[in-house]
C-alpha cells in the first residue's frame, strides 16, 4: 500500500486541478482563494492532505479487513488442502489448480462440464440482453407520454431480483405452470414441456438464460436510455436530411454512438454470467443431472457443501480462476472499446 502512495505522489503533484501552475501550488492551484497568503501554502496543503486521509480512512480500514485480508487469505488457501476443521493446512502448491482443471477424476470433469454450461450462459446472456434492451430503449425513448411509467414497470425485475421472484419463475415453469398453459391456449401445444421447462435437460439451461436476461434487461435498458437521451438531436436531423429513414438512422447513427454503453452492458453481464449463480442455486440447484451446473455453483458446493472433505482449497482455486477470467474479459472489453472510440 505504501508503494502505491509513493508511486502516485509525483503524478498527483504534477497535475493539480488543471491550469494555474505556479510554485505556490497547493490549494491555490485548486482554485481556492481563502488561503491565498503566500506563507500558508505549504501548511494548507498538508492540512488538506491530512483531511483527505481522514475522510478515506473508514473506507480504507473496512477494505483492508473485509477486502484485502479475505482476498489474501483466499489466495493463500488456494494453494492448500483443508477441510475447514483440522488445525493445519496441507500445502499442495499448484495442485488444486491442476486437480480442478485436469488432474483429479472426481472434480475435473465436473468443472469442465460446468465451464461449458457457463460458457453458454456467457454467450447467451450478454447477447440477448443487448438484443432486447437496445430496441426497447429506442422505442421507449420515442414514447413520450408513458415513458416514466413504463420505465418503472421495466425496472421492476431489478428491484425484486431475489429469491422471491425466482420462486415465482419456478412456479411458472412447472409442468402445470403458466408457460405451458399459455402455450396451449395459443395453439402452440407442441412446444409444451410435460416435464416442466426446468425438468427437461434440453430446455433447462436455455430457460435459465432467459430468466437471467429478464433480470438483466432493466439496468441495461436504463443505461441505453440515458445514452440515447444524451445524443445530440442535430446528428439525427442531419442523417434524415441525407435521406436516412428511421431504421437506417438507428442502425448507422444511433447504434455506433451508444457503443460505449454496449460495452458496459456486455461487461457487466459477462461478469455476472461468469460469477453469479444465485438464480441457479434457487431455481435448479444445477439440475436436472448437472445440466445447469455452472462454475459459481460448483465453487459454492466445493466450499460449503462438502462437510469434511478437504475441498476448501479447491473452491478457492476455482474462485481465483473465475477472477482471472473476469479480469481478462474486462481487459479485452476495455481494449475493444478503446480502439473504436
Amino acid at each position: 500500500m505504501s508503494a502505491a502512495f509513493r508511486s502516485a505522489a509525483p503524478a498527483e503533484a504534477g497535475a493539480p486541478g488543471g491550469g494555474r501552475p505556479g510554485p505556490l501550488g497547493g490549494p491555490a492551484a485548486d482554485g481556492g482563494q481563502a488561503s491565498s497568503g503566500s506563507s500558508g501554502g505549504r501548511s494548507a496543503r498538508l492540512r488538506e492532505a491530512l483531511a483527505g486521509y481522514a475522510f478515506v480512512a473508514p473506507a480504507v480500514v473496512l477494505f483492508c479487513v473485509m477486502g484485502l485480508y479475505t482476498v489474501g487469505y483466499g489466495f493463500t488457501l488456494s494453494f492448500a488442502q483443508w477441510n475447514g476443521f483440522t488445525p493445519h493446512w496441507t500445502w499442495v502448491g499448484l495442485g488444486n489448480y491442476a486437480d480442478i482443471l485436469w488432474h483429479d477424476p472426481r472434480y475435473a470433469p465436473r468443472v469442465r462440464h460446468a465451464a461449458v454450461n457457463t460458457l453458454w450462459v456467457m454467450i447467451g446472456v450478454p447477447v440477448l440482453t443487448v438484443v432486447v434492451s437496445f430496441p426497447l430503449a429506442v422505442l421507449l425513448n420515442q414514447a413520450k407520454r408513458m415513458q416514466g411509467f413504463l420505465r418503472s414497470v421495466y425496472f421492476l425485475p431489478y428491484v425484486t431480483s431475489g429469491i422471491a421472484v425466482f420462486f415465482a419463475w419456478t412456479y411458472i415453469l412447472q409442468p402445470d405452470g403458466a408457460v405451458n398453459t399459455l402455450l396451449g391456449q395459443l395453439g402452440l401445444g407442441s412446444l409444451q414441456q410435460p416435464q416442466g421447462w426446468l425438468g427437461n435437460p434440453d430446455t433447462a439451461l436455455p430457460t435459465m438464460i432467459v430468466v437471467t436476461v429478464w433480470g438483466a434487461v432493466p439496468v441495461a435498458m436504463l443505461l441505453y436510455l440515458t445514452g440515447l437521451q444524451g445524443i445530440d438531436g442535430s446528428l439525427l436531423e442531419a442523417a434524415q436530411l441525407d435521406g436516412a429513414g428511421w431504421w437506417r438512422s438507428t442502425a448507422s447513427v444511433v447504434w455506433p454512438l451508444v457503443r460505449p454503453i454496449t460495452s458496459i452492458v456486455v461487461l457487466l453481464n459477462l461478469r455476472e454470467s461468469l460469477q453469479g449463480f444465485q438464480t441457479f442455486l434457487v431455481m435448479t440447484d444445477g439440475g436436472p443431472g448437472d445440466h445447469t451446473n455452472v462454475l459459481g455453483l460448483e465453487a459454492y458446493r466445493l466450499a460449503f457443501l462438502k462437510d469434511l472433505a478437504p475441498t476448501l482449497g479447491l473452491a478457492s482455486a476455482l474462485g481465483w480462476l473465475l477472477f482471472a477470467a473476469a479480469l481478462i474479459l474486462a481487459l479485452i472489453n476495455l481494449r475493444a472499446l478503446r480502439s473504436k472510440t
Partner: protein
Amino acid sequence: MTTISTAPAAPSAHSADGAARTRRRLARLVVGVLLALYGLVSIYPFLWMVSAAFKDQYEVVRGGHLIPQHPTWDTLVSTWDRLHFFDYFLNSVQVMLLTAVLTLVIYAAAGYAFAVLRFPGRTALSRLFVSLLFVPGITVMLPIVLLENKMGILGTHIGLVLPFVNGTAPLSVLLMTGAFAAVPKELRDSARVDGAGELRIFTRVYLPLARPALITVALLTAIPTWNEYLLTRVSLNDPSTYTLPLGLQTLAAESVPHYNNLMAGALIVVIPVILLFVSLQRYFVSGLVGAVKG
C-alpha cells in the same frame, strides 16, 4: 422532415402527406404494442405471484387461470403467520438500514476526498476501490465466513452488514465521487472564505447538493441487501436472526411445499422493497442518470 425529404418513397406529392401521417400513426401503434408487450413480460412473474397468493392449495397445483376461481384470503393470512413476518421483517429492516447508513457515511466521505481533496495516493486509492468490482463474490465468501468466525461475529447482523458495505464500495465510490465532482468549486471557496472547516464544508455544502446521488446509493445498497440470500444462508444459523429471504427459504424447504403459501410469502417479501423503490424512484433515476453521464 416531411417538407424537405426528397422522398424516393413518395411517388405522388398529393397523397404523400396523408400516407406519411397514416404511416406515422401505424408506427406509433406498433411501438405502443411492443412496449406494452415487454411490460407484460416484465411483470409476468408478479402477476402469477399475486394470483397464486389468493388460491387455495388445490387450485394452485392445477396451474390454470391467472384469475383465481375461488379467491381466498386464507393463504395470505396463514402464510403471514408461518413466515414469522414481523420477526424476520425487523431483522431485514435492521440489516438493510445499517448497511445503507454505513455505506452512505463511509463512501460519501471517501467520495468527497476523491473528488475534492488533493492528497498523495488519491488516484491509486480510488482505482483500488473500483478494481474491487472484479473480485467474484464466491472467491471471498469462504474467507469472510472463516474470518468472521475468528472475530466472533459470524451469524450476527454485523457480520452481514460489514461485507455488504464493503461489497458496495466500487459502485458507491464511483457514484459519490461523480456527484461531488459536479459541485462547482466556487461554493467550496466561498465557504472557506467564511472560515468553514473541511468537515463543515462537506456536511453543509456538499452533502445537501448531492442528495439525488445519496438516495441512489442508498437504494442501490438497500435493494440488493433486502434480497440478499447467499451470504445470509451460509452465515446465519439461528432462526431468530433470519431475514425475510431465509424465512421464505424455510417455507420452500418444507416437506411438501405449497406453492400458494410460497407465492404469498414471496409477495409479502417483495412488497416492502417495491414500495421503497416507487416512493424514491424519482431521485433514483435522476441520480443514476447523472452518474452515468458524469
